Each structure stands twice: as C-alpha cells, then as structure tokens.
C-alpha cells in the first residue's frame, strides 16, 4: 500500500486569478493509480502572497506540507509523480 499524498491548493482571490483556478482539477491530469493516492483540499489565503516580508509568487499549493510557489498543473504533476515513487 502506497502512502497517501496530501495536496492543498489555495483558493484565495489572488491565487485564483493568477492561475489557481485550474489546480483543483489536478486529479484529472494524473493516472488513475496515482490519483487514488491523493487527498485534495482547498485552503483559504495563507497570507504568504501579500505579506511583503515573505512574498511568494501565487498561485500557491502545498504537497505534504511543502509549499510550491508559482504552481501549475505541470509543476504539481511532476512533484506528485516524484513522490508517488517513494
């Protein structure tokens, strides 16, 4: 039994308009085998995008707690596939 991968995507306004609107559909871009492992959750704005001392590039997502900035389907897919082999 492979380990579950927790994916969180930011649903805040900023991340949403910067491309986050597609990230909720990540499962559709994965093979069924990998998609099964994923628990997908939405997250309210974490504040990381507009606190200027730690500004990160939206959209933001988290895989097993690790923040991914400037997230895209491609980027998430790569990270998830890499983790699914562990």
């Amino acid at each position, binding site marked *: 039994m492979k380990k579950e991968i927790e994916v969180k995507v930011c*649903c*805040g*306004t*900023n991340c*949403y308009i910067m491309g986050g609107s*597609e990230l*909720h559909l990540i499962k559709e871009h994965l093979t069924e085998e990998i998609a099964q492992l994923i628990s*997908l959750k*939405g997250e309210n704005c974490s504040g990381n995008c507009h606190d200027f001392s730690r500004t990160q590039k939206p959209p933001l997502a988290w895989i097993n707690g690790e923040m991914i900035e400037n997230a895209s389907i491609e980027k998430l897919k790569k990270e998830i596939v890499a983790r699914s082999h562990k």
Partner: protein
Amino acid sequence: MNSAFVIEAENISQAKAGEAICGDAILFKKIKEENRLVAVVADGLGSGVQANISATMTSTMALQFTIAGEPVERTAEFITNTLPLDSKRKVSYSTFSILDINYRGEVKIVEYDNPPILVLRNGEFLDLERQEKVLDNLQSKRNKVYQYNFILEKEDRIIMVSDGVTQCGMGSDDMHFGWQLAGLKSYIQETVLERPHISARELADNIINKTCSIDNDRLKDDASCCVLYYRRPRKLLIVTGPPFHKENDSVLASEISNFNGKKIICGGTTSKIVAKNLNANVEIDLSNYKPGLPPQAQMQGVDLVTEGIITLAKVSEELNIIHSITETKDSLSGQIIRMMLESDEINFISGTRINNAHQDPNLPVELEIRRNVIKRIAHHLENKFLKKTSTKYL
C-alpha cells in the same frame, strides 16, 4: 402599515396552449414615499397578441389612475373608451381587478368581471362584504363593478386569479364546469395547511402548475395568478472583507452570530477571521466545484461561505442582466442571487481593510474595490427588485 411587516407580492402567468404570449397582465407598483402598494390583474378579450395588448393597456391605465387617486368610474370609463375594438366581436373589453393597500393596511379592491378576490386569514377565507356599483357611462351591458374594503392583518394572503384558473378543466368528465372557485379555494387551503409558511411565489407557482395539470398541460385559456403575502420580513446578512481595525474582528463575529436570518460570508480571509472568533471551522468544499468561480466553503452557523471580490463582481454582473429569480444560474453566484431575491431585507457589512495582494499591477484582471461592487449590488436590489438594503462599513 406596521413597518415590521412586509408584503411579498408575486405573480405568474401562463399562456393558453399554442399561444406564444399570455393575454393576461399583472402589474405591481410600490409607492415608497406613501408606503403604498397597488396591484392590477387584467384579462384581455381573446388570447394571444391582441388580448395581451388589451390587458397591458388596461393594467397600465388602471395602475396609473389608481395611483393618482382617480375615482373608479372615471378609470373604468376611460379604459373602455381607449381600448381598441376587437375586429370580429366588435367590442372592446378587458376585465380588471385593482388592489390598493395604503400605509395603514387599509385594502381597497375594485373588481370588474374577474373571479372574486380571495383573502385567506388563519386558514379560512374571509367573507368580504361586497358593494355593487353601476357605471352609467359604460357602453356595455356588463357595467357593474364590485368594491370591497378590509383591513390587512399579519399573515394574511390575498389571491387574485384570472378566469383561466377557475375555468380550467371545463367540459371534462369529472368537472363539467371546470375547477371553479370552490376547487381553487380548497386547493389553496390544503396547500397552506400543509406548508404554513409557503412563500407568495411558491403558492402562485403551485396554483398555476395545478391549473396546467387539470387541463392536461394544454391550457384552454390564459391563466394568471397573483399572490400577496403579508408577513414578517426575511432577512439576509452578507459580510465581506476584514475590518479595518483588528479590534473590530470580534465586533464582526458577534454581528454574525447575533443576526436573525440567513447569513453569507464572501471572502476567504473574512471567513477565517470569523471562524477564529466564533471557534468554528471553515472547510473548503471541492466536492462540487465548478470552474468559473472559486469554490465554496462550509462553516457552522453560516449558510454560505464563498470567495470575496471575484464572486461579488459576478453577482453584480448577473443582477444587472436578470429580471426574475427564475433566470438565475446553477452556480455559486446564482445561489447568492437566489438567497438575495428570496429575502426582503439585505444587510451588507463591508470590511474596509485593503488587501495588498490586490494592488499588484501585474494581476491579469482588474479587481474592483469592494465598496463599489457592494454599492452596485445594493442599487440593483433596491431599484430593480424593490428590496430594502443597508450597508455598514467596519
């Protein structure tokens, strides 16, 4: 009129089978300065375009004359003289009922050839005293109008229908003369007994649906129904944006928990603040996420939680286009609009803290200032949908 109560007025019309437009017309007008409501139901002779024109002319004239305070003789005379002659029947004719409710709750009704008006109070129909008036100047044999007066009481329902409703099913084996007033009356009583808080819209909807089903979905005449329901107002609270001063976070939270009515929070950060102060959880719900708008969230004690400015901008855009609740979409913005239109009073609380992230010139779309969007939404609700609104800034 007791200002703690409101009148919910709704109407539905259905055209005769095979006709594109309905030959009945129903008009409402709220006169805000006088706290007065005037409603007119008119049924034009025949069906289709010709009937629609007669009915529309009649209802418009009746409404304007009544608002201006003209006596009923003059109104009726003027209408009959103005209506165009039917080319085959060589008469000009349209029925009408006029209902006028003033600020003290005094109801005046004038009825000309329409089925009698029904007033439901505590599950029973009022036996209204009817005054007959003969209009001498009317060049028609049907020259009698009936007048009724009564005082509105809370939880009263007033139902006006066109004869397409009372005569549906006419000639069928089980009802030779149709549904008739008695059938309609017992149907209304049963429906209200089953659902004592049924809204005016739903009751009107039910009556017309029943009419259609009695006629086997092929109406033999235009059927219209107008329902007025005098009841406690339904209130809605919409909260959007974090308060300018952090100290007001708890004020915002208590405004929400103390509010008596439905509640919507538009804003991710706002919902987080409220949840923290109320010891509740917000969870974003991706289960029925539809692209187009950010997903909704769940929070105990709040009816709907959504993202802020994108969703509100969409609400404002759609409110600008639609004319009735039936045109709303099956989306988050549509859901918000439905909740707005099902309420009588919409209260906005807008936080005024600036979201730094929204000021980035590199954003691909323009994000408007919350305050302006709220102003526009409130404007539509007040002017197009006759709702009462209030806005508070924190």
